C-alpha cells in the first residue's frame, strides 16, 4: 500500500513549510524511521522521518517551495505499485514512461492549494491574523465568507477569553521621527516574525503578574559539584537541569501552573513537560523535556544537552518542539541578576532565572557568603493568583535549597 508523505504539522502554529533538503532520492529504498527530508518551518529546520518502509517512488515537492501543512510532498511504495491515483488526487500528471534517468529527482510542481474565500474574508483574516485554512467555509461552493471568519475569530476569542479581539498585526511601518540617525533596514526573519507575533499575542491576551524569590543555591552548587565529579562529560548536570527538575517537582504540587487557559475552562496537564528557552542565532527556541517529573535528574541532563545541540544546529525534530506545558528561561550564563519573561502560549506560566551570584546574606545572626539566584515567575492571572505563585516559588526554593530531594 503506497504511503502518502505530506507536509508535516510540526508545532501547533505551523501552517506551512518547505522541504529544505531531500535526504533520499526518488527510487531509493527507505526504512521506517529513517530521515527522508529536512523540513523548514517558521522556526527551525526539522528532520522528517519515514513512517513507512519502501521505495521513495515520487518526490512531489521540490526543495525550497512552501506549501500548506497536509500537502502531498512524496509517495513511498513498493516497486511497481501503482501510485498514479495518488498523484492524480493531488492534481499531478503521472509521468508517461519518463525517458530520463529513473534516479533523477523529479521536479514535479507542487500542488497549489487555494482556499476558496471571498475577498473580504481574506482581508479580514489577514487583519485578524487568522489562517484561512483553519476556517470552515459555509458560503456558496464552500467559500469562506466574512461571517465564517468572524465566527472563527469569535471562537478564538472565547478560547482566549480575552476582552479585546486578537489583533496581532504589526504596527505599520512608520516613518522615523525627525532627528533620528540614518538606519539600515533589516527585514525580520520568519522566526523573528513568529516570535513577534506569539509574544505580542501573549502579552495582549494573558494578563501577566510577576513574583520573585531569592533562592540560596549554595547547597545546590555543592551538590552539583559532588555529582559532576563522578560523571562523564556528557552526563554532567547543569544548574539548568536542577532548575528544571525542581520546577517540575514543584509543579506537581501546584498543577494549575501547569495548565492552559481555554476560555471557560482550564486544561490542567497530567504530564509536566518543561520547555526550555534556548537562544540560537536566529532567535529563541523552546525544545521540550517531556515528563520531567518521571525522568531522573541525569536523564534530564542528557536530554537537555541533546536538545540544546539540535536547537543550535537547527535540527530540532517535530516532537522536540511540541507539548510543552511550562517554560523555563534561564539567563544565568549572562550574569543577569533577574528578569521577567513573557509567557509562552498556551502555557500558564514561565519561570525566569538569573545567574547564581555569590552574595553576603544573613543566616541566623551572621552574615555569610552564599550562592544566590533570583527566580521570577510570570503567571497568567486568568489561571492563578499571586498566593499560588508565591507558594509554588516557595516549594521551588525549598527543593533547590535541599537538593537531595531532587534525586528522589
Amino acid at each position: 500500500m503506497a504511503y502518502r508523505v505530506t507536509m508535516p504539522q510540526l508545532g501547533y502554529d505551523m501552517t506551512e513549510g518547505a522541504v529544505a533538503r531531500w535526504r533520499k532520492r526518488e527510487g531509493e529504498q527507505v526504512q521506517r524511521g529513517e530521515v527522508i527530508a529536512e523540513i523548514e518551518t517558521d522556526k527551525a529546520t526539522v528532520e522528517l522521518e519515514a513512517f513507512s518502509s519502501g521505495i521513495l517512488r515520487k518526490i512531489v515537492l521540490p526543495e525550497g517551495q512552501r506549501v500548506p501543512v497536509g500537502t502531498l510532498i512524496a509517495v513511498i511504495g513498493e516497486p511497481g505499485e501503482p501510485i498514479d491515483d495518488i498523484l492524480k488526487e493531488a492534481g499531478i500528471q503521472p509521468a508517461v514512461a519518463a525517458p530520463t534517468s529513473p534516479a533523477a529527482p523529479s521536479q514535479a510542481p507542487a500542488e497549489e492549494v487555494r482556499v476558496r474565500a471571498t475577498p473580504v474574508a481574506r482581508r479580514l483574516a489577514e487583519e485578524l491574523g487568522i489562517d484561512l485554512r483553519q476556517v470552515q467555509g459555509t458560503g456558496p461552493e464552500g467559500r469562506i465568507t466574512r461571517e465564517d471568519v468572524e465566527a472563527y475569530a469569535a471562537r478564538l476569542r472565547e478560547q482566549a477569553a480575552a476582552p479585546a479581539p486578537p489583533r496581532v498585526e504589526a504596527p505599520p511601518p512608520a516613518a522615523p521621527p525627525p532627528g533620528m540617525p540614518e538606519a539600515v533596514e533589516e527585514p525580520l526573519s520568519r522566526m523573528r516574525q513568529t516570535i513577534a507575533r506569539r509574544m505580542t499575542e501573549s502579552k495582549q491576551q494573558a494578563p501577566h503578574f510577576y513574583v520573585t524569590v531569592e533562592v540560596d543555591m549554595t547547597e545546590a552548587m555543592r551538590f552539583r559539584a559532588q555529582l559532576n565529579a563522578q560523571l562523564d562529560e556528557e552526563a554532567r548536570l547543569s544548574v539548568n537541569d536542577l532548575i528544571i527538575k525542581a520546577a517540575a517537582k514543584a509543579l506537581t504540587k501546584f498543577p494549575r501552573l501547569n495548565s492552559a487557559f481555554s476560555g471557560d475552562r482550564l486544561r490542567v496537564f497530567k504530564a509536566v513537560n518543561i520547555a526550555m528557552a534556548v537562544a540560537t542565532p536566529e532567535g529563541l527556541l523552546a525544545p521540550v523535556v517531556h515528563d520531567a517529573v518521571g525522568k531522573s535528574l541525569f536523564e534530564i541532563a542528557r536530554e537537555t544537552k541533546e536538545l540544546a545541540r539540535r536547537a543550535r544546529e537547527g535540527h530540532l525534530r517535530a516532537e522536540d518542539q511540541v507539548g510543552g506545558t511550562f517554560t523555563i528561561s534561564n539567563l544565568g550564563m549572562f550574569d543577569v541578576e533577574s528578569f521577567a519573561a513573557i509567557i509562552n502560549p498556551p502555557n500558564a506560566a514561565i519561570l525566569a532565572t538569573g545567574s547564581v551570584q555569590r552574595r553576603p546574606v544573613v543566616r541566623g545572626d551572621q552574615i555569610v557568603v552564599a550562592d544566590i539566584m533570583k527566580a521570577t515567575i510570570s503567571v497568567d492571572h486568568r489561571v492563578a493568583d499571586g498566593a499560588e505563585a508565591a507558594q509554588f516559588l516557595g516549594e521551588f526554593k525549598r527543593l533547590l535549597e535541599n537538593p537531595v530531594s531532587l534525586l528522589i
Partner: protein
Amino acid sequence: MPELTFREALRQALREEMLRDERVFLMGEDIGAYGGSYAVTRGLLEEFGEKRVKDTPIAEAAIVGLATGAAMGGLKPVAELMTINFSLLAADQIINHLAKIYYMFGGQFTAPAVIRTAAGWGQLGATHSQFLEVIYSHVPGLKVVMPSTPYDAKGLLKAAIRDPDPVLFIEHTLLYGIRGEVPDEEYLVPIGLADVKRPGRDVTIVAYARMVHVAMNAARELEAEGVDCEIVDLRTLRPLDIETVVESVKKTNHVVIVEEDWKSFGVGAEVAARIAEQAFDYLDAPVVRVGMLEVPMPYNRNLERHVVPDEADVLAAVRSVVGSRV
C-alpha cells in the same frame, strides 16, 4: 406632501422651468396638439403657445439636431424623442454632435440641450421594447439620467434643464402612472448622485428606474427572511456615482445589480467592474447581475414577462449571494 404621478411630476418640472426661464422650450413628435404620446406635455401647448411647445415631424435627427443648434444659440431646448428606440435615428446627432460640441471645438461653446425620451415594454414587439441607455451612457460628453420616483423625476428634470451640459433624460413608460410624494416648494435633485432608497445591512441591490421598485418589493420579502437589503438607486448613469455604491458595498459586502436591460456590456457590467476595481477587498460573494434575457423582445405576453427581470429573479439573486445566511 402632495402625491403626484410620475407623469405629473415631469409636467410640473417642465412647466416650472418654462415659467422660470423664457429660453426653455419644448419640441418633439406629438407633444403639443396630441398632448404627448405619454401625456407628459398635456396642456402645455395651451398654456405656453406654439412658440414654446413645438410639434415636429417624425424626424428624430432633425429634432435632436435642431435642439443642439438651438442650445448653441443660447436657448434651453427640451426635445422629446417619443421612445428611445427612435433615438437610434438620431444617434448621429446625439453621439457625433451633441456629445462632441463642447470638446471638439476646444471648450469654446456648449450645447446644453435636454433630450427626453421614454423606454419600456408591454407587448410592443422587438423594436419598441428596448432600453438603450447603455449606448448613450458609454459616451463622454453626455449625461444620462433615469429616475425611479416622481420626486426624483421632477428634481432631476429641473436640474437637467438647468445643467450646462447635454442631458439624455430617460423615462420608464411603466412608471408614468406611479404616485409619489412631491413637495410644493422648489427643489432640484443633483445629476450624478445616486440615492440610497432603502438602508440595509446585508446586501446592496444596485438598481435604477423601474427596477428600484422591483428591488424594494424583493427587499420587503427578504426582510422576513432576515436579510436586510440596502437599495442604491443610481438615478444618473453618467456620470456614475460609484462612490455611493462602493460605500454601500463596504458595509454589506454583498452586491446584486438589477437592470431592466440586456446584461452584456451593460450598466451592471460597468458597476460590477467598478466594484471590482474599488471595493474588491470588501466583497464577501461574487457580484451577481439580474437583467433581461438576451433576446429581442417577443410579443407574446408570457414570453415577454419571462424576458423581463422580476421580483423572483431578484430574490433568487440575493439568496445566492448571501448563501448560507438564509
